[in-house]
Structures are given as C-alpha cells and as structure tokens.
C-alpha cells in the first residue's frame, strides 16, 4: 500500500478567486491541474488555457455514420433485398426515405454527443483520489477547488503550495492516492 502523492488541493471562496488562481497557475506553466466547481464557471476554459473540446468531431463522425448507415439500410432493404410494389411507387423512393434517414442521423449524433462526452471525461469511473478528501465533498455544493497534480513535470511541493497560497487559497491539503 504505497501512498503516493496525487496532488495539492486548494480551496477557494468564490468563482472569481478560483478564476484568478487558475490564471496564475496557468501562467506559472503548470499543465496537469484542474479546477473543480459545482457549476461551470464562465471564462474558466481560457483561464486554464484549455484547448477547445474535441466533442464536435466525434458527433460529426457519428452523424455521418447515421446518415450513410440509414441510407444503406433502406436501399438494401427496399431495393436490393426484397422489392415490394407499393401502389406503383418507385422502389428507390428517395423523398420517402428522408424521415427515417433524418431520425437515424439525429439518433447516432446524440449517441456520439453523450457517450463521446463521457468518454472524453473519463467516465464512468469507480473512484478517484480526490474523493479521499472530506472537504472535496462540497465541490458539488458551494465550494471551489484547484488541484495541481504531482504528475506535472513542474510539480514541486513547496513551490506549488506557495503559488496556491499566493492566490488566496483558504485551505490547502495533500491528496494521496491510496491504492
């Protein structure tokens, strides 16, 4: 049971303090840090220096899959596999194929959006070192946290502690990964 240090968790009073802290930590050159808040804080992506989410591409690819998949399915069923003459309508009756194609495009895109989001977020996940902190329970209620992870190449305990205090942390604790 090696208790490795996961990171330093600092607590902040309100979103503005968290935002300023994130800017400072970003400017100090840290990469592996994250902020935790009960709701998305406006402007935090820039403050942390995050790249735009890749989710749009995942959804686009799924949507394309839905579109082509639906058309392939319908043409296979209605034209290649078993033709049925329905009141003399053409076997490849494109306008009639629009609704089902549209629905399947939306369905697959939505799958892409939801499951892609969970995938990018690393969820579902059974446990996380941060859940060892009692204080962190309030990250989903009314408190704001910033955690610099020990995996960051710049990470040095005293230095990290100093920068977190400088930008107004009201509480700092060490988080251990105990499994």
């Amino acid at each position, binding site marked *: 049971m090696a208790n490795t240090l996961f990171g330093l968790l600092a607590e902040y009073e309100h979103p503005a303090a968290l935002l300023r802290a994130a800017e400072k930590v970003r400017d100090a050159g840290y990469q592996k840090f994250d902020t935790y808040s*009960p709701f*998305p804080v406006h402007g935090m992506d820039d403050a942390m220096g995050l790249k735009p989410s890749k989710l749009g591409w995942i959804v686009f690819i799924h949507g394309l899959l839905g579109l082509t998949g639906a058309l392939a399915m319908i043409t296979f069923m209605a034209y290649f596999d078993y033709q049925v003459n329905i009141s003399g309508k053409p076997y490849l009756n494109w306008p009639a194929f629009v609704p089902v194609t549209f629905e399947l495009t939306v369905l697959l895109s939505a799958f892409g959006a939801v499951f892609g989001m969970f995938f990018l977020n690393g969820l579902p996940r059974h446990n996380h070192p941060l859940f060892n902190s009692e204080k962190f329970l309030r990250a*989903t209620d009314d408190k704001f946290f910033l955690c610099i992870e020990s995996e960051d190449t710049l990470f040095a305990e005293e230095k990290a502690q100093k920068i977190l205090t400088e930008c107004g942390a009201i509480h700092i604790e060490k988080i251990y990964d105990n499994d």
Partner: protein
Amino acid sequence: MSNNAFVPEQPLVKGNHNFSSITALISDIVEKPTPIGWYIAFGISNILLFVLLGSIGYLVWEGTGIWGLNNPVGWGWAIINFVWWVGIGHAGTLISAILFLFRQDWRTAINRFAEAMTIFAVICALVFPGIHVGRIWVAYYMFPIPNQMGMWPNFNSPLLWDVFAVSTYFTVSLLFWFVGLVPDFATLRDRVKSKIGRIIYGVFALGWRGANKQWQNYEKAYMILAGLATPLVLSVHTIVSFDFAVSIVPGWHTTIFPPYFVAGAVFSGFAMVLTLMIIARKIYGLSDIMTDDHIEKMNLVLMSTGSMVGFAYIMEFFIAWYGGVEYEKFAFINRATGSYAWAYWTMMTCNVISPQLFWVKKFRRNVTLTFILSIVVNIGMWFERFVITVTSLANDYLPSAWDYYSPTIFDISTYIGTFGLFFTFFLLFLRFMPMVAIAEIKMILPQANPHYYEEHQNDGHKQEVTETVKH
C-alpha cells in the same frame, strides 16, 4: 421617465439564495422523510396503473374488438391518446432545448421537471401504438428486424416513419435528461447520509467530479444535444401529422398539418407543465425558484401557441372552401355542425377562446386561474385530436359507409389508466431525483458570475482586480 425607459428583468431566483441554500432547498426534498400525501397520491396512481395493465391484458386476450372501433372509424381513442401524450411531451424538449438555444435563462427553473414529464408522457404515448396492433406478439414487424417472411418494413409508410421518430425522440430525450442529471446526482451522492443512497446516487453520478475539464466537454455536449433535439422535436410532431396528412381522407390531406400539430403540441405541453408545476411548487415550497414571473412567461407561450392553433383552425376552414373540393368543404361544415359538433365547439372554446384571457396581465399572474386554464387547454387539445380523427373517418366520401363512433368502457379505462402510468413515474421522480436542475440554477445566480465579486468588494480588493486587468 424618458422614452428609453425599459422594464428591468426580474431576478430569476427570488429570496436571497446562495449556492448552498439552493443545494439544500432542492436536495432536502429527496433527503427528508416521505410526506404522507405522497403515499396517498402514489397509491391512487398505482390503482390506475393496474386499471391500465388490466385493460391491456384483456385487450391482448380478446383483441381490438373490445374497443369502440367500427367499420369507417378504424382509428379511435388509441391514436387520439397517442398524439395527445406525445404532444404533451414536446413542451419538455422545447423548454430544455429550444429555450436553451435562445438563452432564455428562466428555463432552468423548470427544465428538469419538464424533461421528466416529456419522458413519462412519451412512455404513455408509446403504449398505444404498441397495443393497438392487435397481434401484439408480432409487434416487432414494425422494426427492421429479420423475420420468417424475409420481408422488411415499408419505408414509404408514415406509420413506419413514426416508429423511428418517436423511438428516436424517446431515446434522445432520455439521454438529454440523464446528462443534465449527472452533476446533480453527484451533489446528492456527496450529501445523503444513508449508505444505500450514497451507493445508488454514486452509480448514477458515474464518478462526476465537477472538474472544469469535465465541464468543458459537458457544456459542449449539452449545447450539441440542444441543437439536435430542436429539429428532432419539430420532426417528431411533423411526422405524427404525416400519419394523417399523407392519407387522402377529407380533412386530413392538408399541408398545414405539420406546423399546426407542432404548435398544438407545444400548447398542450406547456399547459401540462403548468398544471404539474403549480402543484409541485406549492407542495414542495419552491416558489423562490418557480416564481410568478415564470408562470407569466409560460402563460404568454400558451397565449401565442393557442392563437397559432386558432389561426390554423380558421385557415383550414378557409382552405376547404377556397380549395373547392366538395368533400373537403363537407368535412369542415360537418365538423362544426354535424353529429360531432359538441366536440368541435368544446375544442374551439378550450383552445382558441380560453387562452385569450391571458392578454390581461392580471390573469396571467393569477395562479388559480392559470391552473384551471391549463387543465382546460389539455381537455381542448384532447378534443382537437378527437375531432380530427373521428369526424373525418366517420363521414368521409360515401354516405352509405358512414357510421357513428362511440368509445366503450375499455377505451376509457385504457386512457384513464395511462394517467396511472404517468403519475407513478412522475411521483417516483419527485421523490428520488432532484426535481430542479441544481447546477444550472446556481449558474443563473448573480454570485456565479466572476464579475459579481469585482463589484461587491471593498476598495482594497478592487484595486487589486484593476491591477490584474492592467497586466
């Protein structure tokens, strides 16, 4: 007062709330002991649910002959109830998706609630196409699944489009709802005292930590889902209207049906949200979040969609005359004066005349009146579907083929039973899930905006902030 004076927007959340009081207000409903009233309501709902299950059981045993269907009227209450329930569901998506895209922040108070209503209403709706097929054991013919005949569904048929539209709609609504719930499940996971509760909420929270790297993808997903759900909800009721409009039955074969059905769906759905909301906010003391301003805004939606529906009724009539087809003309004159005139005028009174009361501000803000009218509107919208379905079928082309349609006790018991299904689910939702989107409500509090603290700090701090800006 100058000419440029404007009415300031009311605060979205009343009563000096902060982040933790919002959490407490909503989570307490789940954490506190179950109120007695809930058990009573749940018991009644369960009885009705058994009425539904009994009616369905007898239907499967005996066949659709137990319903009041006759030779010209092959579509009765089953399709009426289906369209009615699906229509009610649409308001949830309108609130959660379309109002989100339009940045209408007031929606956060009611979106969770309305989305839950959507899902349960669509479940009730799906009961009807499921059971009306008669031979329910071959209901899988509706889906493109290989079967012993080697045949595939007919992709020219609006009824098949409907299968895809409604099942996609249900799936996407459920996903959208769940995505919204994940951060709130995490809030409950971190709050509840009981171990079982922690485990169950923990499972559904999927390990959510509220990390900004997660929020970034989350917000993107939410926006994309709203963008997908918007055309989806419009397409669903459009396709439902195709069930009618693509046929050649007089009174059905009209191009106005898709927009008219969508407006009607939003109309009835908002009415249903109001009915449920007015009860829930009273019982659970949520008037700070679901304020009278919300009721007023929703009444404005009721008034405008009600007027759109009224316009469509009159326009249909006009086109029937202007189009010059005698069967069309007869169908509409017959609706207003024939043997179903009572249903037509019920529809007109409830849907067109009653929402006009909301032109008066005092009525819009009157909770009791709103509650009564919200029920009146849903009665009217049920009759709209009745008028469309039954009058056109009962008296179509050949008078020798006409017949009068009336429901049997089993039509009625199945319909009443779906309320049992709906409220069983809805009460479980109220009891065990956060009925207001906690994280989203916090976002619309003034304290959520980082700039709030610049304005509300003492001078020393203010200087510091301006310095950082200068850098």
